[in-house]
């Protein structure tokens, strides 16, 4: 048996890309104290809207812009439910996910009625070389720009401090003159945009088409990654790489004859189980942000 290491690393980076984008999006919203369970639906929305716009205009760039707009809107809608109305975060996030997925499926079936449409033009691979550097530009930007920028903004800027203050103690933040409402809305909208980019990467760069199971649980994985990383950027990126590595290995082993006896489904389940094991080991001493899951009402 032989495993092509370069191909493995290349696949790992590609698989990790949507997790990095959407995971950092989730991290930003959770830093403000909002557990955003609409992530699965927002990624789905980004994948679908991105595809639709790219298919209609012929430009993946316009697709990406449309996806970002849709993600911002989804974040604002989530904000309306959990910030303005103060509804339960679990239920509104899950409800929004169900609504967005059903809405996209409805529109997809209405427009394409059973066809399997493909894009005329999708994002090209940036370089041609070995498998490791053969990546889409969204992968490069995700690892080399987004992650350091998110780390720096969250750690060293006033914006990051504001977010942190709201997430840890919104009463204190409010007293200090920080608008809890505005901060949470901003976090949700920025986070939604990043999640939508993560989803759009799947249609605009990887597949060049849209399928009904396109996101298939990646959003839930991101939620686990963020908690595993204890709301820090680099551990989240590392977690995404580990998860993607398991997934890439699983893909490689599936085509390796020595592993024919192992059911493919077991391999597919491995990454999910790995996240749970990692949580069980690394998540023991998790201290949640102080205003996690709480709605703010000025007394």
């Amino acid at each position, binding site marked *: 048996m032989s495993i092509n290491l370069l191909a493995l690393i290349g696949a790992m980076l590609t698989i990790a890309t949507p997790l990095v984008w959407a995971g950092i999006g989730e991290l930003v919203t959770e830093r403000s104290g909002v557990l955003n369970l609409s992530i699965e639906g927002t990624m789905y929305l980004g994948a679908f809207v991105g595809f639709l716009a790219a298919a209609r205009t012929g430009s993946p760039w316009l697709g990406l812009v449309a996806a970002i707009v849709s993600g911002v809107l989804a974040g604002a809608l989530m904000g309306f439910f959990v910030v303005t*109305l103060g509804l339960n975060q679990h239920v509104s996030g899950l409800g929004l996910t169900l609504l967005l997925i059903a*809405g996209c499926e409805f529109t997809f079936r*209405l427009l394409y009625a059973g066809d399997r449409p493909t894009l005329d033009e999708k994002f090209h691979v940036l370089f041609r070389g070995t498998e490791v550097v053969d990546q889409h530009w969204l992968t490069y930007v995700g690892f080399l720009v987004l992650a350091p920028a998110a780390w720096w903004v969250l750690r060293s800027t006033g914006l990051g401090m504001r977010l942190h203050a709201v997430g840890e103690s919104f009463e204190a933040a409010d007293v200090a003159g920080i608008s809890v409402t505005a901060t949470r809305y901003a976090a949700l909208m920025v986070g939604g945009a990043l999640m939508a980019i993560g989803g759009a990467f799947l249609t605009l760069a990887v597949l060049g088409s849209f399928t009904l199971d396109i996101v298939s649980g990646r959003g*839930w994985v991101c939620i686990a990654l963020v908690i595993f990383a204890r709301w820090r950027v680099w551990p989240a990126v590392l977690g995404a790489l580990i998860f993607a590595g398991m997934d890439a290995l699983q893909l490689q082993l599936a085509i390796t004859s020595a592993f024919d006896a192992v059911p493919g489904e077991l391999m597919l*389940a491995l990454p999910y189980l790995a996240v*749970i094991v990692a949580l069980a080991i690394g998540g023991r001493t998790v201290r949640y942000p102080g205003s996690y899951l709480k709605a703010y009402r000025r007394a």
Partner: protein
Amino acid sequence: MKFVLRGHEPRWLAPAAVLVAVLVTVALTAVPIRLAGAAPFSAFERYLVTPLTSVHGVQEVLLTATPLLFTGIAVAIAFRAGYWNIGAEGQFLLGAVGTTWVGTTFTDLPAYAALPLGFLAGAAGGLLWAVVPAWLKRHAGIDEVVTTLLLNPVALLVVQGLLNGPWRNSSSGFTDSDRLGTGYDLPALVPDSRVHWGFAVAVVVIVVAGVVLARTAVGVRIKAAGQAPGAAGFSGVDVGRLQWRCALVSGAVAGLGGASQVMGVQHQLTSGISDGYGYTGVIVATLGGLGALGVVLVALLLGDISVGAQNVSLVLQVPAQLGAMFSALLLLAVLSAMSWRRYRLQWRRGGSR
């Protein structure tokens, strides 16, 4: 403009809020119906009314509502205790697996032994699938939302793995399991209908759960643990143990749903055995106010919408996903409208406070 806490809640407010939410949902879903080229009014009539105008239609509604009754009450039991079980989907699937295992292993049992065994195996399957997240929550403080969610796709992979491998149909070779022994066939509740005894079992489970939750000391403790865990702990309730037990009961009830669906409808395991019933259970439980009667009413309503959606997609060529959109919108609209019960809007004129 800002929100102000209401002093007291007028009696008319809750029904009015629900009415407004339903109207908003209807208005919002009229848009996609129009886009699909159908007339909203006749579509809504087919959605909501047509299934109830014939005996056959009502039977289909009861049949469609049956799995939702199980998953709805399962989620409600856990949510009541403040345990956010989002894993009813996986527990439902593993319930179906448990039932299929006994149903294809002990094939010659007579009905009076097979049916209880089938339900028991379903409950055991669902319970086992709920153990790991509940244990991690209790002993390591790991957020159950994440673990129960992540186990849903794993459960589907378990089903697919069994159907692709050891349980592949021995006569057709398709990726469905063998047929369960005929002793496991749940009889029809009404002669010549597809409504089976699973519906009656669901009602019994809901009545028992409703009585326990609303009328017993255990129910009071569960409610206290869910609404004010700090205060409940202070007054001597072991919140962790209570949530652990509710989590397991919740999993077992969701597993019963899988058992009922296998024995009453499919008579074999298929990878499509759950049509998202676990996720819809969250809608049912929440809209039903985490109470028994509410769960029944909402499950019947969603059953009605879902049967109507099949009907509409056949007759008016509107994609059946409209049913799912309608349910999710209804959830968000009702929750939003209900938030006005505690708060009211105060418009501030410029300058004066």
